[in-house]
């Protein structure tokens, strides 16, 4: 079956098993490996991408459901929020091993697009699904606040 969708603004046609998760289509069919595999069961957030601007888990999103969808991955984010997030992540040296950070950045960007001045509770709620085994959470929190300031400035 073939599915036509937009990925990072480009129209792509995927010739894939409709039951195949978007995660593997991105990584293996399109060679876009910025989106990570962490658990495969929607328990870690490493595979987070945006579907029409909303953060979703690509390991649990089936290609067959995506006809006409607009997907954004870490390779394609370029909004004001995304730029602020990436800059803040660099300024605070957030990543350690870095493997979770694509997902963290996608989740944080979606949060700030929706809630430009998040409280700590907003951050807990939006980010709790994104595991970081290096436990960089303290810096992620700081970086989200910093990105929020940058967006204002």
């Amino acid at each position, binding site marked *: 079956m073939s599915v036509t969708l937009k990925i990072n603004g480009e129209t792509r046609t995927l010739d894939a*098993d409709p039951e*195949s*998760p978007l995660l*593997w289509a991105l*990584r*293996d*069919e399109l*060679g*876009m*490996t*910025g*989106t*990570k*595999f*962490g*658990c*495969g*069961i929607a*328990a*870690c957030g*490493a595979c987070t991408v945006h579907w029409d601007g909303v953060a979703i888990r690509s390991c649990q999103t089936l290609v067959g459901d995506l006809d006409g969808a607009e997907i954004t*991955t*870490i*390779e394609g984010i370029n909004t004001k929020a995304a730029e602020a997030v*990436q800059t803040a*992540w*660099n300024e605070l*040296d*957030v*990543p*350690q*091993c*870095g*493997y*979770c*950070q*694509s997902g963290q*950045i996608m989740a944080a960007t979606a949060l700030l697009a929706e809630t430009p001045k998040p409280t700590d509770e907003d*951050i*807990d709620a939006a*980010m*709790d*699904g*994104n*595991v*970081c*085994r*290096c*436990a*960089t*959470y*303290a*810096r*992620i*929190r700081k970086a989200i606040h910093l990105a929020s300031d940058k967006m204002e400035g």
Partner: protein
Amino acid sequence: MLHLLQKPLEAAQPSRRSFLKISAGTIGGLVLAMNLPRAAQAAAGDGELVQPFVHIRPDNTVIVLSKHLDKGQGTATGLATLVADELDASREQVSAEFAPSNPQVYANTLFGVQGTGGSTAMANSFMQYRQAGAAAKAMIVAAAAKDWDVPAGEISVSNGVVSHASGKSATLGELAGLAAAEDVPAEPVLKTPDQWVYIGKSFPRVDVKNKTVGAPNTYTMDFQLDGLLIATVARAPRFGGKVKSFDATEAKKIPGVVNVLQIPNGVAVVAKSTWPAIKGRELLEIEWDDSAAETRSSDVMMAELKDMTTKPGLKVREDGDIDAALEASARVIEEDFDFPFLAHGAMEPLDVAISFDGENAELWLGSQIQTIDHNVAATVLGIPFEKVKINTLWAGGSFGRRAQADAHPVVEATTLAKAMRADGMDAAPVKIVWTREDDMAGGYYRPMSAHKVKVGLDENNNVTAFKYTIAAKSIIKGTPFEQMLMKDGVDHNMTEGAHDTTYAFPMMNMDQAFQETQVPVLWWRSVGHTHTAYVMETMIDRLAKEAGKDPVAYRLEMLKDDPRKVAVLKLAAEKAGWDTPPADGRYRGVAVHKSFGSYVAEIVEISFRDDDTVKVEKVIAAVDCGTPINPDNIIAQVEGGIGYGLGAILRNQVTLTDGVVEETNFDTYEPIRMSDMPEIEVHIVASNEAPTGIGEPGTPPIGPAVANAIAAAKGNWVTSLPLAKNGLV
């Protein structure tokens, strides 16, 4: 000296015991294609300075070659900092790459082979990488002196610019080619600490940019190569199980599956991409032979461990007749502790890529002990050492998981590559991908352990004798590390942090007993300290209470001969405001521990939610890891080490039912998450001592500090982990 495996592993039956021991001295003889500076220099392009630890390119980039794996702990940045400082390079021009596998040039000087672990990266590289930077700078200066016809002593280098009072100036890159013709100084002059420009200040991480844009080919999981196939392996559900028979008919029907092959430790499904490799494996029908497998449940194994602690074991420390001393005491406090198996749960599951054409092999992986991986690959493939190339890639965490003595992922990848060739799949490169379930149910856990402590007290509640017995499976016994790390049959890794305590007990005896099981065990961030610190620091709190003393004051009294521990404890207490009581509903706990040469004190503040579960609100840490090379990275590692340890004591355990692992993914092995993470403050003690480790030392104190805070609220100490088992999470 570490001894390594060399004898051909029977490819069909790799066993840890079949490793022939050769000394590290012999390894050199194997390395024909050694990266001799001169040879490498001759092979380099024009205009480049090529040294073993640093390359300076004509485009003015400075590449530091990290002999250590960076799995998040910041080592590549640390090594870059050392070179950049002595070289006086600018921050912007410096980046890091992983060094090739070559034990003669890139050995960890504390191990004798190339490898990373035990928080040794900075300790063993501090002089070596500074010397490399200083030597390169001396060569640059000598070249400039000749070129400009001025005395070398009048030339200065700052922020990547070489200059002379006459107005002459050049970049490092412009002089690199000329510098390559200069002699390498045998003993380059190093800066004095007051001349450092980056060490002890800050140096931004060299890997952050790539890790915030999802850059390709950073991790093995993302590694791409033309025609690369993906394999999953169905491994025995019980440790030590073997394939009896299998039927791959249905698996082979999945489009994209190209082959199904039996290998020594399971059945491999080889596919064009990952999804069919995962789907195909689900459809395999395999009958397993469990005759030699571990079929016990973990509670049965724990009962055995507890029983072992009631009997005399191997003597680890023996100050005197402890039973007589306990007998003579006014009273004896006895306590039993138990700790579960823990999985490392690194964010990137295990993975290895290999390309093998029958004569040459190339591997790509987050290689933590390159010399072992390299030797094992050559041995299994039956080709010479120099025909194997190991490419180290950034690893998405390790926490000990990638530092295996048996290189089992490499054994698996090489046996698969051989099986594929034997089946006519010539030179097809393949990557074995572990799913989260494979990684978590795959063993190599922090050993489960049982501990028994008996402390004798006199009439005034002073300690008279401290008797401590640990039972667990040894991480070292039966591995190539045994020779180096075990003495007289005793595994000191199991008891580190306890047998060497600096608490002033008049008498301490320590015993250990080894459990035999097929469940493979491995070091887990901070190794023995993960359990000994918990036992020692909760017992000390308890003894303070018996003596009617404040926990900090009691420790200071008992640590008289350990000034560095005293200093971190005092600093943490001061920063946490220990002398003033916490706010209503808040409780404090303290712990201080030395591991890997570094001292860490942590003071936590907890509260209880409405359902009486614990919330860790705040952690104040004080750290002495010798000369702080990169303070911001020290802070990051302590933050992460606290989070990692806290997650484990809150909720984590791996249990077995009839030998089968119950917790196989992050839904049942619930990792620490954003809302669990306390506020953390890290204070670093100023020091001129040699730098010591920081990847692990933040982890041991957090568990006991939280337990002590719970005891401050409830009056008793948790002795069976995780806290979730006690209704506290």
